[in-house]
């Protein structure tokens, strides 16, 4: 079956949800790509998203990987266009309008309202993502059982390094990948 129209539709929709960053769209992305369309597994999605953290440019370029995974290079192209073009046009039009509305009192209200909304959706995405990233094996974490504590320790290490030092995050991710090869070999 031809997946291209579905890829275009799903990723154009997802791009509208990326308020304040790509993570906001993550729960919906997991739902649509894993549960609705069965394009990839939860783990594969986490893998692509994590790899995307190492790639330069916007970290949501990982959508290209999903497109390729589903429908080859054409799939990657379709997904990238669908993900960036409609919201891009929207940003262009609203951006111009927004500049003219500098003195409209509701503009500040909308910006103040969107800030915590974006943070909340980011955290929600992070929880969905983390649940797969730090679990043991393939069964969902339930009541604190099934947590991969080594993975948690690695996440905490990266968190502390990010908050305390100016180290390049791509290096940290790469280092944890190398450590993972040795520590997660058996699991």
């Amino acid at each position: 079956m031809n997946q291209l129209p579905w890829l275009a539709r799903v990723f154009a929709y997802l791009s509208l949800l990326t308020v304040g960053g790509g993570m906001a769209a993550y729960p919906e992305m997991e739902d649509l790509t894993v549960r609705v369309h069965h394009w990839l597994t939860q783990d594969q999605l986490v893998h692509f998203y994590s790899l995307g953290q190492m790639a330069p440019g916007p970290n949501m370029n990982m959508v290209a990987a999903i497109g390729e995974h589903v429908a080859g290079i054409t799939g990657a192209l379709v997904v990238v266009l669908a993900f960036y073009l409609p919201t891009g046009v929207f940003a262009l039009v609203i951006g111009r309008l927004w500049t003219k509305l500098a003195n409209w009192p509701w503009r500040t209200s909308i910006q103040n309202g969107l800030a915590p909304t974006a943070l909340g959706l980011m955290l929600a995405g992070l929880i969905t993502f983390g649940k797969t990233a730090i679990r043991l094996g393939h069964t969902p974490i339930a009541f604190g059982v099934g947590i991969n504590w080594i993975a948690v320790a690695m996440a905490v290490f990266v968190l502390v390094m990010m908050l305390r030092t100016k180290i390049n995050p791509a290096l940290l991710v790469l280092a944890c990948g190398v450590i993972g090869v040795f520590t997660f070999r058996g699991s």
Partner: protein
Amino acid sequence: MSDAVATATAKATPEPATVSAFDIFIQFLIIGATSFGGGAVAYLRSSLVTKNKWLDDKSFLELFSISQSLPGLNTTNMAILSGDRMRGWPGAVAALTGVVLPGAILMTIAAILYGMHGERVLVTAGLKGVAAAASGLLLATFIQLARKTLRGWLDVLFIVIAVVVVNWFRISVLYALIGVATLATLAYRPRSSKPNVEHKAT
């Protein structure tokens, strides 16, 4: 060359006339290929404001605040808005294409390699480490953002509502976004000079 500079400075707004869409494309291509670790906005600022002086700091910050309240990624929105400011819509297209292209090509190649070797035990193990690191990285980004933008308990409440409806009740992100954004915007609605309006509603 010196003529162009002379006319540009004479026009008081030096930015638009001097930058070609091609220059914009190349500059954003470089940013798209070198900005590792998600901090692309910092790279944008050093390129557009500090190095090339295509935008002043004030307009950069103004565009950044707009780009945060639009759907779409901060980096791509910034590319579009600053490209548009410098050279109209061709500038926006050039900037967006440049900033996205390197990473998109790399991720496509990554997916091809993943298709060939993704099932191997060592690759899966390595990716598990990468995923753990990414969780820590994203949490750090969240904390840094929260420190910068949180303004009080009301903001915390909106964050909690968003998390509960998405993760607990599994409500679609679209409805959560519309619902929480509307609620929060109304909570921060423009204050009227009349005191009775302030105590009305919710």
